[in-house]
């Protein structure tokens, strides 16, 4: 049986195709003008990679912000469940998933079947998300992917006190103007984001078996700071953390439509 999952987020769209519990194809691309277009584009790419056609897919589920607008999907499932299931599939010892994406961050606690037991998602404020990191990196005039490595070298990280990411930007500028070292500021930024996520995570049970997903998992600065604050070690997942959402959707499609596995 061949199933697919499609995740249309706010910045990127992903598609994953699975056959008999093996990933046949996976694709990531930037979003297009509408969710529908993004979904079709990315799925076309994935199908091409797998050498398949829409008619070969037995079931396809969607997730992500654009999940309701996807024409070829039979069901939409929230990102939270999909991230839980995707991460669990990649490594079934995982019980707690921290997902930090562009617009939001979530901490998800799953059971021994990969189903969500409890979750928390930031609301009030965007500080503590990937977007916040982007804004601050830009203010610092540093490439996003350098923010992590740079911060690792810091000796005296600055502390950012402001709650709002826009005003944090101003605070960063002030530190820049004061000629603080870039690496210390970078570390300050990562620490601030990590701290925000950690304090969010305290309201769900943190069961051992931690994974981190979402774009920000590529930022070593945030990741290592979180490990320190939480006192845990994140398990390295065998698949690209960015496709976890789409993967989870595909697994759900498989579970609910086939009798296989």
């Amino acid at each position, binding site marked *: 049986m061949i199933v697919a999952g499609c995740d249309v987020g706010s910045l990127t769209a992903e598609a994953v195709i699975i056959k008999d519990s093996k990933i046949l194809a996976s694709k990531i691309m930037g979003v297009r003008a509408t969710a529908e277009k993004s979904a079709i584009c990315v799925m076309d790419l994935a199908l091409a990679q797998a050498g398949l056609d829409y008619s070969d897919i037995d079931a396809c589920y969607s997730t992500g912000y654009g999940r309701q*607008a996807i024409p070829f999907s039979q069901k939409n499932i929230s990102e939270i469940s999909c991230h839980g299931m995707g991460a669990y599939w990649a490594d079934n010892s995982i019980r707690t998933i921290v997902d930090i994406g562009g*617009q939001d961050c979530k901490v998800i606690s799953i059971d021994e079947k990969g189903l969500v037991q409890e979750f928390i998602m930031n609301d009030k404020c965007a500080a503590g998300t990937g*977007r916040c990191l982007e804004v601050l990196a830009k203010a610092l005039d540093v490439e996003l992917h350098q923010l992590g490595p740079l911060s690792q070298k810091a000796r005296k990280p600055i502390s950012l006190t402001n709650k709002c990411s*826009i005003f944090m930007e101003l605070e960063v500028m002030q530190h820049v103007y004061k000629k603080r070292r870039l690496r210390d500021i970078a570390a300050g930024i990562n620490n601030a984001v990590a701290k925000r996520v950690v304090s969010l995570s305290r309201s769900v049970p943190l069961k051992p078996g931690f994974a981190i997903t979402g774009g920000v998992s590529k930022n070593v600065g945030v990741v290592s700071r979180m490990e320190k604050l939480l006192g845990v070690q994140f398990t390295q997942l065998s698949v690209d953390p960015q496709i976890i959402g789409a993967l989870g959707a595909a697994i759900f499609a498989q579970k609910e439509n086939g009798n296989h596995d």
Partner: protein
Amino acid sequence: MISAGIDVGTRFVKACIVKDEALLGCAIEDVSRDIDRVIGRVYQKALDKAGISKRHVKRLVSTGYGAKLVKGKSFSMSCTHCVAKAAFVLDPEVRTVLDCGGLFITITSIDERGVFERTLSNDKCAAGSGKFLEMSAQAIEIPFSSISQYAERSKEPYLVSSNCAVFAESEVITQVNYGRENTDIIAGVLKSIAGRAATLFERIQAQDKVALAGGLATVTAFSSMFEQMTDRKTVSLPIPPQNLGAFGAGLMAQQGKPSRGGV
């Protein structure tokens, strides 16, 4: 006498060279990490445009959020003052100046002699800022210079309600995904910012005539929306609104403490 004004804002650095009450040249550039160099460069550009060499500048006044960053023997003054001064000199009938910059909206009222009366700023709220407009325009891929064209095509502006600029941005993106026209969205963003400006305007019980200053005022759709909301006309001034702060600083320098050399 020749003087200079430098306005180091939250988003842009602006410089003006002034002779008596006339603008000789101005320049503008984004702020960046290397702020000292940006300031130097903008200043030099303005000098070049004016065709003046640095040593002819008798006095220099700095203003704006980062006024202190202007090194040398400059004197710094508050931005509200500078903007009000500039507007008044350009049009002595102006009684209210609304400065809409990168992060703050400030409204100032002046009396018939051009003397400062009082000033108000918006609450700390990023969703009422120029920065928010930039972020939204970027998110829906509209070049900043075409914002007005897009906004004017909108029939039904989308109501942006989030108070957090970053969240509002994601709200905007969600709306795009739901198939909302980007013209409606950008118009909605402008409307939400203009609404906040209009609140300030009501709060200070503004008197005519009204002048707009700051980077947002360069967006014509913004000013027309603001005019429509408050049911008032704003005056158009002969120099670009974004430069008013720097120009005012230059004017202040005409009277202020002497300073030679500058940056």
